């Protein structure tokens, strides 16, 4: 059977900055309270125009599940790796807390979780994906900014979206080959 390559496609024009994705993620993945403890985020762009004609864009983000992973490369104990679905995972018991992966990640997608005693990050809600569900951030979004699916399946919604629309990835110049795609 062909391996899956899971990805998320985002249409940021639909984002209303409600941060329901962040709350759903924190609840689903039991993220400790704190300003620095989060797996996903919504970056707010600068205000455009002048009152009353104002505009602002938002860019939700999380671990980009890169194909060329700097975090995986630098981890001294192989505590982080890419699984068969293309999801970058962390094996808590092997994480020594050197935080090298945090300095290596160009997206600031990782944080140290004092409760698990390991570096933590988005895993596309791997526990949900394993039982055929979609990630909590995808499910909860009221405007359906995120679409989740398998890029190795040409019939999947993510494959169709990327075939029909132009898209971009974040920081392409670093060569990480992210699997979060932003429609343009």
């Amino acid at each position, binding site marked *: 059977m062909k391996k899956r390559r899971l990805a998320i496609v985002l249409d940021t024009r639909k984002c209303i900055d409600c941060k329901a994705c962040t709350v759903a993620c924190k609840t689903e993945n039991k993220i400790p309270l704190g300003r620095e403890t989060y797996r996903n985020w919504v970056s707010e762009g600068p205000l455009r125009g002048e009152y009353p004609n104002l505009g602002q864009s938002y860019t939700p983000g999380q671990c980009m599940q890169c194909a060329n992973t700097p975090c995986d490369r630098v981890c001294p104990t192989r505590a982080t790796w890419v699984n068969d679905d293309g999801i970058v995972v962390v094996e808590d018991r092997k994480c020594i*807390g050197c935080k090298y992966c945090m300095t290596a990640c160009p997206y600031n997608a990782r944080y140290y979780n004092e409760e698990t005693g390991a570096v933590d990050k988005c895993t596309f809600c791997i526990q949900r994906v394993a039982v055929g569900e979609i990630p909590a951030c995808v499910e909860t979004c009221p405007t359906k900014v995120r679409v989740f699916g398998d890029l190795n399946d040409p019939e999947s919604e993510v494959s169709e979206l990327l075939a029909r629309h132009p898209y971009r990835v974040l920081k392409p110049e670093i060569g990480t080959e992210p699997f979060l795609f932003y429609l343009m």
Partner: protein
Amino acid sequence: MPKRLKISPKWLFFSLLTCGVIAGLAAAGYVFWVGHSEAYNVTREIPWGILISTYVFFVVCCSGLCLVSSLGHVFGVTQFEQISKRAILLAIITMLVGFGTIAMEINHPIRMAIWVVLSPNFSSPIWWMGALYGGYLVILCLEFYALMKDRHGMASTLGLLGFVMAMAASSNLGGVFGLLEARPFWYGAFLPLYLILTALVSGGALLALIVYFNHRTRGLPFHEGERSFMDALGRLQALFVGLLAFFLIWKVITGLYGRPPQGYEAMMALINGPLSLPFWLFEVLLGLLVPLVFLLRRQSRTPQGVALAGGCSLIGMFFMRYDMVVAGQLVPMRVDVGEQAGTWLAYTPSVTEVVIVLGALSACLLLYSIAEQRLDLSSTHT
């Protein structure tokens, strides 16, 4: 009439260092009690702070001591043979204290000892850092044993091995930073080479201090041979510090020229930002310019002058490590509202972090001073 308590300088010296070590241990205990997130000011955005920079300071001092002292017992420059034992001993102590410092920064040092063996990642520069410094420590211990037992052939062979390991370990340490594509301020071949050069500066500075204070504390005069050694060391140091100045000048020029993304902002953090005080005052003035003035003038290249230049260089080196580690992380990875383009993230070491650093410096000095008291470190060659 009550007897007046007489406090000797030696008693005061050892008491102060012991207090420093106790304070450091207390701070370490506090970290174990409340956890890293409570005790340290490192953040998600700036995960490496002063403990990492102090670790770099210590282990690069270790490499430098080995490199410069190898001139004597490896490359046969007889003037340098008198300091071999002291240099190797201090190299061992600086490495052990450096390991202690990084163990306080890593969340799970015991887990590390297990998994770097059971699940090694050979593509990780940190894995290589542990392997190289671990092997290097064993070589240094054997070398010190050989020197103490006057087994010159063995000491010379181990010294050569130590020389290679010192080069490999310090340049790989530069690679720990230099291989991170995400951090343009660090990325590239500059840091591995820079760390070798700064190792030479640190090693030379420490050797000057060792020789000078060994004579001062024992009340020994500087004979002609020792004066000529200090003069030679001073000239060597002038070369190292002069080269370092050029390395720094070119790092600044490449950081500013054409405003490379992220690298420019990090460089500006040093030149005219949150790190400008440690950069200009300690790294440039105290660490480079003052030593150069003392070392280049023949009149001031006396034992005192060379030692003073060494002390200044060493202080400069400490801040240079801090600037290097922190500047690379001050530029935000994501530009959100409130963190507008061109602004820096903030990091100030916590009291606990500073006390641990002071404890580490005290431990290094205390261990070396005790060894000086207990061991016969004088050379048989002079």
